[in-house]
């Protein structure tokens, strides 16, 4: 009994730094923002309890709240499927046994190493500015390119493309999933006369569905929280066309010092993510297949 307890004690000691970090940097802010969301708190002065007023303000007085929520939903519903489709497409190409495939895989993964970095956002801005590289290249083909970032019709799509371009991590996970699908299934299907499309629809997609599900959940959560791209590339403009929810939260917290209101915004986002994730889990029963599942 003592030995078991001692083993546990050593185990906890190993993960103690993580536990301390988790409690102080995750749980404490999590709880405190919930409490602050019911207060008027400017950082410089102590919080004053205001009940549900921050939540009421959000829905009744803040026109930017609904605007940024709408922009974020469009961003998520455009960028996440595009990113997953593109990542799967590239993963299937890189799943072939050709010479130097390791190099290709590394090159395609490179954009993701930079993550949501400022440098990458600055690069994106330079590429898509009115007289940026993209429009200059189009001009050589006698095409008058649009104002990708300055026109409200294109700005959100341009920002979304930055998210799509960082498909590397999803691609690697897809690649792992593709490698796990046994070859004999494809061979059997070929013998039965199934073409490429049928093999993809009836073997690849069903057996890859757990991976798709994982990527979908992770990328959805990630996209709802996107900040750097909109902040650096467009500052949310023009006309709030790229004013993502994280930007609204940042402005209220660190530019207007309305920490109470920003906390309420953060908690609303948390609830939205909870609902969206729950819906995805609920829907997974209809399209998720596990290889070892009897069904």
């Amino acid at each position: 009994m003592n030995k078991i307890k001692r083993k546990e004690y050593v185990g906890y000691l190993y993960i103690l730094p993580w536990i301390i970090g988790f409690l102080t940097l995750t749980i404490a802010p999590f709880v405190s923002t919930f409490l602050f969301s019911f207060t008027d708190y400017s950082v410089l002065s102590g919080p004053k309890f205001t009940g549900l007023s921050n939540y009421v303000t959000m829905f009744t007085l803040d026109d930017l709240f609904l605007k940024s929520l709408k922009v974020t939903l469009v961003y998520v519903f455009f960028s996440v499927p595009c990113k997953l489709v593109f990542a799967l497409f590239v993963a299937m190409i890189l799943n072939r046994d050709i010479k130097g495939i390791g190099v290709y895989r590394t090159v395609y993964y490179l954009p993701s190493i930079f993550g949501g970095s400022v440098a990458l956002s600055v690069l994106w801005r330079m590429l898509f500015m009115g007289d940026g590289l993209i429009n200059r290249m189009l001009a050589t083909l006698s095409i008058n390119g649009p104002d990708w970032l300055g026109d409200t019709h294109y700005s959100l799509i341009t920002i979304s493309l930055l998210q799509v371009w960082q498909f590397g991590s999803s691609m690697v996970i897809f690649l792992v999933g593709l490698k796990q699908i046994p070859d004999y299934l494809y061979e059997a299907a070929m013998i039965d006369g199934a073409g490429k499309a049928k093999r993809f629809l009836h073997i690849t997609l069903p057996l890859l569905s757990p991976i798709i599900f994982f990527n979908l959940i992770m990328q959805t959560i990630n996209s709802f929280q996107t900040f750097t791209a909109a902040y650096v590339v467009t500052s949310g403009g023009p006309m709030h066309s790229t004013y993502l929810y994280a930007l609204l939260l940042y402005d209220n917290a660190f530019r207007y010092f309305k920490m109470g209101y920003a906390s309420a915004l953060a908690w609303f986002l948390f609830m939205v993510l909870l609902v969206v994730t729950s819906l995805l889990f609920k829907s997974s029963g209809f399209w998720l297949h596990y290889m070892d599942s009897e069904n």
Partner: protein
Amino acid sequence: MKKNTGFFLLFLLLSSLSLFASGDKEGAGAKEIRFAWWGGDARHQATVAAIDAYNAAHPETFVKAEYQGWDGYYDKLITQLAAGTGPDVFQFVTAFFSDVRKNPELFYDLRKLEGLDLTGWSDTTLDIMSIDGKLVGTPLGQNARILVYNKDLADKLGVKIDGYFNWDQFHSMVQAAKKKDPSVVGYSGIMDQIYYALMGYLVQTSGKMFITDDVEFGFSERNLADGLAMMLTWFEDGTFQALNKTALLNSAWSDPEWLNGQVLFSETPVTQLGQQMKYGFKADITRYWVKDGAKLTGNPVGPNMMFCVNSQTAQAALVASTLNFVLTGEEGVKAMELQRGVPSNKKAYDVLVKNNMIDDMTRKAMQIVDDTDTGLYSFIDPNEIQDALKDTIQVVGFKDQTPAEEAKNFMEKGNRILSSYK
């Protein structure tokens, strides 16, 4: 063995935690202060040189420089001050007063800072840096917003700029230039610049400050609707640069049309004059256009930047000595150059004049400042109001709403925001 492993891990953990605990304690007991500011490379180099000179002359103490760009400076500073870990001395600007006016306890009352030499400033200048009678900062450079124009372009198009013109004359001047070259734009449409132009219009037409002492707008909804309607016309006829071309730009320095010599006018705060005049064309400066007979111009004239002292500093004497050195001492003033504008402190100004460090363009800018009204702000426009008015300009500029509709929307939203500052 396992017992030893446990103790070893515990030892490692405690050792690492003790490292954290001792991180900032180096030299505890020694006289040391932190001096923070924002700026560009030139300002950093000048200020670091002044601080190095101070440290060399006072080896028994140490002033630590903490500097960065504008982005994030204020957020970080306020967070540090709120957490009680703020720097001892920090650069500040009156634009932030609206946020901190309810918290003057964050600042040391500089009239009570023993040893600090305030004799080089007039009482009027010191009043600008006061919150409820408490002197919270030492005034730095004289400031105002002035027009910069492309002299090469103006000469080529035969535009004569004699220094004083009203709104109509400015508009006619640009339209006359456009007749000769339709590709020319009158005024750089960077949002900050359009914002200050609109603010000037509102102050000049209402005759009251943008935001009054009672924390209310000095202008009416009608004033705003008229101003927006005029701006919309100016966007359409090319007097102002189109907003979609400047939507992503923060300053004229990054405006390709201005840099390529297609824009006649831009503007700058006097404190940034040194950076602004480095173009591939000959540039000159002049006074902002003003409505005839206006009681106030809406141009924030006077020093707006300052060095503040953290009320929690434990080294008040060292702070006073350092500020005296960089603000009024010959060596410090020379090292600081004109990186925060022409000093409002007479002693510092005399040092620069004696050492021939004020160029002709700067003298001209100072003359413009002197000729502009001293309509100082007692309440500064908070970020939230600025953002709301900039949104309004965009909505009208992109023709999403009419000027009258958007003026109504702004007044409703703006009044709601202002009520939280009362």
